[in-house]
């Protein structure tokens, strides 16, 4: 019963824990079942992706960056492509942009349904988990048929997309969407009216509008607190200006509101996908993309299923990026978990944690090395020496 801080009893969640599908370390100080303090340690899945882009060409980097996140892979590639295309002063053809939107919305469906299942599982409602994941297979099969892969679709190429939508595929998508729409209506009914489930979600983890502004929450987490912010609406990219999205917000800010926001966003996605299929521009899938990208830097922002995804890309005129900076939506949302945790039951912790739809591997962008040097800036030689000392 050794506790680290005085007389506090600390429950560690992670780095290895059944509630977390990825390694990350949370410490909850508890008084009986009541949580009195929370802290997080990030960085277990730092993969050096930003550094990795420095010795890959733009083409290769796109596939590396696609693997920042396993669930929202397409949106990462889109963000990078849009940024690089802007630097190279070209624009993907309208049909390619429309297909990017289509795949992004299918991906959002897959991500939100996955989250619905995970959220239900954390609450101990495994039947909802199984059914939502079963129905998620529908959208995965559609993606597999369109792109050839189930998770890392690799739909984008610099300057366009690889996959086209033919008449048969369009019909299959419509059919799948009809089924999903019916099921989603049912799930909305379940999360808003199931008495036992509501006991775990209603009024739990309430984040007010002011708090969400102060903590810098993004995406559906913020929208559940009434923050009307969605990049697809505010700064329409790709073809979102042609296929406008209606903003979905809720005001309650509790876990139920987060379930409702995400499920209602599914209906929005169904509508946008149908709009894309109804009005798919004819034309080429790609434009010619120069290998060397003009010198300059740009910021590319897109709305990932989890919130705002931010890319900074700097080119030095060669075929390799000088610097790529990625900020995934989980990082700004993480502060809300630690703040909301205090005062809740230990049993609510996994729910509150999952409520932001965390993706830990995505947010681990940097490791800070605690060494003898005071400086934040280390030379390669110093880092190498540190490594040798560390493993001695």
């Amino acid at each position: 019963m050794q506790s680290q801080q005085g007389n506090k009893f600390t429950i560690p969640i992670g780095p290895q824990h059944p509630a977390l599908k990825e390694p990350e370390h949370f410490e909850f100080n508890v008084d009986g079942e009541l949580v009195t303090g929370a802290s997080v340690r990030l960085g277990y899945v730092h993969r050096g992706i930003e550094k990795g882009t420095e010795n890959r060409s733009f083409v290769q980097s796109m596939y590396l960056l696609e693997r920042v996140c396993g669930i929202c892979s397409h949106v990462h590639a889109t963000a990078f492509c849009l940024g690089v295309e802007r630097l190279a002063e070209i624009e993907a053809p309208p049909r390619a942009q429309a297909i990017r939107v289509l795949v992004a919305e299918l991906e959002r469906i897959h991500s939100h349904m996955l989250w619905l299942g995970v959220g239900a599982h954390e609450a101990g409602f495994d039947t909802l988990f199984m059914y939502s994941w079963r129905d998620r297979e529908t959208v995965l099969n559609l993606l597999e048929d369109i792109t050839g892969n189930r998770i890392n679709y690799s739909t984008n190429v610099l300057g366009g997309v690889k996959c086209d939508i033919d008449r048969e595929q369009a019909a299959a998508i419509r059919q799948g969407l009809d089924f999903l729409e019916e099921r989603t209506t049912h799930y909305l009914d379940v999360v808003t009216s199931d008495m036992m489930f509501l006991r775990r979600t209603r009024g739990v983890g309430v984040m007010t509008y002011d708090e969400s502004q102060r903590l810098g929450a993004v995406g559906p987490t913020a929208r559940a607190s009434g923050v009307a912010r969605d990049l697809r609406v505010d700064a329409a990219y790709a073809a979102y200006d042609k296929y406008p999205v209606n903003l979905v917000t809720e005001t309650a800010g509790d876990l139920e509101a987060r379930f409702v926001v995400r499920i209602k966003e599914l209906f929005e996605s169904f509508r946008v996908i149908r709009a894309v299929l109804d009005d798919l521009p004819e034309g080429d899938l790609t434009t010619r993309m120069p290998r060397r990208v003009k010198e300059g830097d740009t910021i590319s922002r897109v709305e990932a299923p989890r919130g705002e995804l931010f890319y900074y890309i700097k080119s030095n005129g060669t075929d390799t990026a000088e610097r790529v900076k990625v900020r995934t939506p989980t990082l700004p949302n993480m502060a809300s978990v630690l703040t909301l945790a205090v005062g809740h039951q230990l049993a609510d912790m996994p729910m509150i944690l999952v409520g932001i739809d965390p993706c830990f591997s995505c947010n681990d962008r940097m490791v800070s090395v605690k060494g003898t040097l005071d400086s934040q800036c280390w030379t390669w030689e110093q880092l190498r020496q540190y490594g040798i000392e560390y493993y001695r």
Partner: protein
Amino acid sequence: MNTLRAVIALLFFPGGLFILFAGMAYEWVDRKLIARFQNRIGPRWFQPLADSIKLLAKEEVIPTDVNAILFVVLPVIALAGALASALYVPIIGLEPSYSFSGDLIVTLYLLSLLTLCTGLAGANTLDRFSLVGATRALTQMFSYEAPVLLALLGPAIVAESWKISVISEYAKSHWLIITQPIGFLVAVIGLMGKLEMPPFDAPEAETEIVAGALTEYSGRGLALFHLGKSVELMVGLTLVTAFYLGGVANPLLFFAKTLMLLVVVAGVQSLLTRLRIEQTVGLWWRYGALLALAQFLVMIAYEGVA
């Protein structure tokens, strides 16, 4: 002759081996039903057996800083308690092997031994998940134990005996589910609480505290606890069926009745969300205990009049 009968009853039928295998069969039915409710295929028929053999064959890791004797003995006591309780209940509708006046109370105590051992096992280790799990397990035990006792005493009052065989004989001619529906409900839900089935699985909620009190258990100890739980599922179902669903009967009919009960239990497991521990306690003391008590008082009043 008597010794031989005792040995057979203890080791083979209805105690010992038979009850172990029957328990695993019931566990399989439970798992399969939940899987079917969730549109999955579910485990194959030998899965609980395979799990047990695999666990028994594995190394048992004894953590440092625990009382090693207690750590090893607790799962044995838990399983022994569950197995012993099987001797006093009418397994598959047959007369209980042993019977004496007041065996109902003894059986209930033996059935509680599993939870008690789980709690102690959790408290014995230094693991934080185990400690929280142990606290929750014991808290939950204190919440359901009283209402369940009241629910099972109901039939005893009307049968005017503390003997399980007499009560089930009485239940043969009186379907107590009709005269004491609240008792039946409390008994079934109490059984689920005892076995830490969803929605009462807060003591072993994997997304919060990994495996609860049994987090540090592996190999043999874990297998014995699991077997104890399977046996208790079977004994509990038998007891509720014998008391509330028409008492001892033709073995096949009795088996069908327990299966029907298991279908209901599996349905409840798959349709409800896990309760937080304070919600569980609230549910039992606010509704379970009060309702059981109310029915109990009505019954006593009725008996007094008659």
